[in-house]
């Protein structure tokens, strides 16, 4: 039960000459919720995009649920099947209805019959509380609704880990809450989550650990209480003072 489901060791990545990720080590246990924060450009997005091989890396190793993802990205497909991702800009498929967005991957990746896939999709759309919008197109919905569809779409693949890259930062303030509520529900159901966010309220309420990144390194990781009450690093203190105000 306490085996790490995601294990990152000695991860190094360069963009050309630029060293974005430096010696990252991180273990995520099953059911653990990790919030990653840090200043802009510190490599948070790059890190979680490495976990489902949207970015390649030059050194180190990532193991997801026992599947090894080395620098040659051998088991890409197997890893991606276990990992769901939610993007800042939703990235729903605009030419497909909400329902089709949610059934596409189950049908074409997992070869599930259309009818079953639609049933599952409706179940998840109910969980994110938008079943009655199933036949709308994404362009006809609000940002918050779109992001909830994106979460449902990722869940239809039954991922073991969910990655969130600033899921609320493209949203108007009043929609942030509906998306965060959905994520809290998900956390309560025991989903393993890695969340890049600046929503410190969410971090306090949900996270098991808060990881702070700066200049491509993890410079602090602690429980939310400790992290907010007594940050160790000067850089962390500065960041918190700016973000909490």
């Amino acid at each position: 039960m306490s085996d790490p489901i995601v294990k990152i060791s000695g991860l190094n990545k360069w963009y050309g000459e630029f060293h974005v990720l430096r010696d990252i080590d991180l273990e995520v246990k099953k059911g653990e919720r990790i919030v990653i924060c840090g200043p802009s450009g510190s490599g948070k997005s790059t890190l979680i995009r490495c976990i489902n091989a949207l970015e390649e890396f030059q050194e180190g190793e990532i193991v997801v649920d026992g599947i090894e993802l080395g620098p040659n990205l051998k088991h890409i497909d197997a890893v991606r099947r276990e990992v769901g991702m939610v993007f800042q800009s939703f990235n729903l498929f605009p030419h497909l209805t909400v329902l089709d967005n949610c059934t596409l991957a189950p049908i074409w990746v997992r070869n599930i019959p259309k009818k079953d896939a639609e049933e599952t999709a409706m179940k998840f759309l109910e969980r994110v509380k938008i079943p009655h919008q199933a036949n709308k197109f994404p362009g006809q919905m609000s940002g918050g609704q779109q992001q909830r569809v994106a979460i449902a779409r990722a869940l239809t693949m039954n991922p073991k880990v969910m990655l969130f890259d600033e899921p609320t930062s493209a949203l108007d303030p009043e929609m942030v809450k509906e998306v965060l509520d959905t994520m809290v529900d998900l956390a309560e159901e025991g989903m393993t989550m890695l969340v890049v966010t600046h929503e410190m309220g969410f971090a306090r309420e949900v996270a098991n650990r808060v990881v702070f990144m700066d200049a491509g390194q993890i410079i602090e990781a602690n429980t939310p209480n400790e992290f907010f009450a007594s940050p160790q690093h000067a850089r962390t203190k500065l960041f918190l003072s700016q973000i909490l105000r």
Partner: protein
Amino acid sequence: MTDIASPSFVRHDLVNERPAPVKTTGFIGWVRTRLFNSPTNILLTILGALLLWFTIVPSVRFLMVDAVWSGNDRTACLAENAGFAVGACWPYIQAKLPQLIYGFYPEAERWRVNLTFVLAAVLLVPMLVPRLPAKGLNAGLFFFAFPVVAFFLLHGGGIKGFGLSWTAGLLELFDDSIIGAGNVLLNLSKTSAVAPLLWVIGNLIVLVGTAIHWLVFPLIWLRDQIQGSGQSVWVDFAVTTAVVCLIAFFLGGGLRTGWRALASSFATFVAIAIVIKLMGLDHGGLPIVLTNLWGGLLVTLVVSVTGIVTSLPIGIALALGRRSTIPLIRIFSIAFIEFWRGVPLITVLFFATYMLPLFLPGNFTVDGLVRALIGIALFTGAYQAENVRGGLAAIPRGQGEAAAALGLSWWKTTSLIVLPQALRHVIPNLVNSFISLFKDTSLVSIVALFDLLGSLRASFSDPKWSTPSTAFTGFAFAGIIYFIFCFGMSRYSLFVEHRLNAHRRN
């Protein structure tokens, strides 16, 4: 306080509804607000009206009022016989209509052309109406079955073998060309400076060729046995059916889930058998009509439909190739696109018709019409590639990433996510190219193919119908025909665009 509670601009009783002033609604209102609302617009309106007056009125006069509607030869369309300045000479079109539609296609065989037109319409119309079901089957019939049937209908002739013979033939050709290349190298090695190297490579290639020869030998032996039997087509057909059905069965999932694939491939072969039997392909088929006898609208439609249907896949493949991360594919695509875009279509047609035969090996001939078809398809394909690339560039990177994150492969991402969106963006450009292709088909008349325009011009030289208005009538008629097709395409594309872009409307 009372001042604020009931100021003078607050109404105490409701105002009854009144009709809008006459001046702003209805026809008069429209005229006032749209046509005569400012000095500039008054000027433009008057100019427009004058333009209409000077174009529409003479056209109607020429085509209808002053036209001659019946007659047997040129005398009916001469001013001295008709008694007025003659406009269009319609009896001439009537007399020449068969030539304009079929060219020199033998009269007794013209039913085959008509049947092809009917088949095309029967398959095309249901495909274009979105509400009708079975689009997959319909598209399959139109894009794959129809071209083959149309070929045997229009051209005629039969088949001597089936899948097995064709495969054997292809492999044999492939093998022969390998051995041929090896022998050329061996010959070169006798005179060249790098003789030993060439000798080694040549021998290696011949060796590979011989090995392949022994590999495919059983197949060729089987082919020869079948050809020797009386019912070669049907034996070959049965063997092919069995092999393909079995492959479909196992690819479909074997004993558990393969039955559907087995049934559908078997049904396909039964349908093919029926077509072969109906058209008598197994014993010679219909009498052959060589393509140099084809002409008129038939050639225009064959060339344009083939061009339209083949150029889009070519364009998509090239556009994807141009964005590929594999350098060889990318360079090939860029070179191909730039080459075809850099030369005029006339050059392409000339090259395909007169120069290509010089480059092909002696006994290898390609029909003149087919050469023009290939040239036009590749030429338009290069243009479509750039259109499609424009659409691909408009798709945000996040779309591909989201699909990848869901585990979709490159092929599935491209065909389910990227292309459907990209093509929707560029429907107007694609159709634009289709329309210009349709009109460019008239260029084939310079390489001795008589399309609609070519047949028309040929008919001008008939002394029986030479009158002052013959040429005008002919061009007006051709213009109307071209316009009907192009306008139809344009309207249909608007309809499709509107329908497919439903998701962009709120």
